[in-house]
């Protein structure tokens, strides 16, 4: 099966592993991520103001592409996913907003939220299925205590994201289990890492990421897994350095046995 794929800026530069393994793993699991043409940066954050129109157009164009290809729009980066999903939700539910957006779009066509935006994790869980994945695991992550870090963007606002229980999410834990690892459940996994504020105020990021790392460590995590490049950056910068932070696609690639292949190919 083929899905439309929105990689996002960071995955083309600093987070190439997140992108590369996402594609390899999907391919291994029978799904081709087709990168949409001429995609534009999502903007990193969804501006909640009702009169912010232009900042959401790139998401709408990506969604239109998915609609025109009659396929879901998949993103791996939590930030891109958050922006696109919230934009799609607004297009479906806020008639006034949709009207304004369509005025901007003009001859590019009209859009009313017909496409479905899903995160890579939802692709794994809802389309491919964890049971299928379990069956394809070549190198089980046995004995590894892995702490999933969700941060904010995957889960919130929960009414819109509809990804998982925002206070007690299980999708990554279930994935870790499917890959043969042992998930570590800790309360700070859905708290913020400090996000973009790191640019202005490194202390905020340090404080928040520090809390997350400490909590994961105190629960005996060997490793932290995340879907967001900025989370990874903040956690790595502010951890004690003992617990590695990896992308979920890296972990998946390792378990599916496609990681070495990729290295070989290089």
């Amino acid at each position, binding site marked *: 099966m083929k899905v439309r794929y929105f990689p996002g800026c960071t995955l083309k530069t600093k987070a190439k592993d997140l992108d590369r393994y996402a594609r390899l793993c999907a391919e291994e699991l029978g799904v081709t991520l087709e990168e949409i043409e001429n995609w534009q940066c999502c*903007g*990193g954050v969804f501006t909640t103001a009702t009169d912010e129109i232009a900042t959401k157009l790139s998401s709408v164009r990506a969604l239109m592409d998915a609609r025109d290809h009659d396929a879901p729009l998949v993103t791996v980066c939590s930030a891109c996913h958050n922006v696109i999903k919230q934009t799609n939700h607004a297009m479906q539910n806020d008639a006034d907003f949709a009207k304004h957006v369509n005025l901007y779009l003009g001859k590019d066509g009209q859009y009313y939220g017909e496409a479905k935006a899903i995160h890579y994790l939802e692709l794994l869980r809802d389309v491919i299925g964890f049971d299928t994945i379990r069956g394809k695991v070549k190198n089980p992550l046995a004995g590894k205590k892995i702490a999933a870090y969700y941060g904010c963007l995957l889960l919130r606002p929960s009414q819109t994201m509809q990804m998982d229980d925002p206070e007690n999410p299980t999708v990554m834990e279930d994935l870790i289990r499917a890959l043969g690892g042992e998930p570590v459940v800790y309360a700070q996994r859905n708290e913020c890492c400090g996000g973009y504020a790191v*640019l202005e105020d490194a202390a905020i990021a340090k404080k928040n990421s520090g809390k997350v790392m400490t909590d994961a460590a105190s629960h005996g995590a060997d490793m932290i897994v995340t879907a967001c490049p900025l989370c990874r950056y903040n956690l790595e910068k502010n951890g004690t350095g003992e617990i590695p932070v990896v992308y979920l696609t890296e972990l998946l690639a390792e378990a599916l046995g496609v990681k070495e292949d990729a290295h070989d190919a290089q």
Partner: protein
Amino acid sequence: MTHSDRLKEQILRTSGVNPLKCMRCGKCSATCPSYDEMEYHPHQFVYMVETGDIEPLMKSESLYKCLTCFACVDRCPRSVEPAKLVEAVRLAVIREKGGNRLHTDDIPAKLDDDMPQQALVSALRKYSK
């Protein structure tokens, strides 16, 4: 309509938030990761917008401490959505001429080798127009 009435009307409109729904439980502030960095806390944003006391908020550094993590939005028992108010007030500031908080020229100095692009675009979108 006084200036502060107009400001309040603008904030309510752009945020889409009704501060009258607030029952003053303070859960937003209890859950806020940037609480200590803020001069005005999420529950104060709600209350001060309700009373039309918006100018102090516009002058406050608090605007740039919100991480837009939506914890206050998700955990609010009354569905007030305080983060949207913070954003609306911040927009009211940075949309003004010369209101930008972050300038592109400032960015190189703030970078390190690992900083993801995502951080730059997000910060620019949040802090500048």
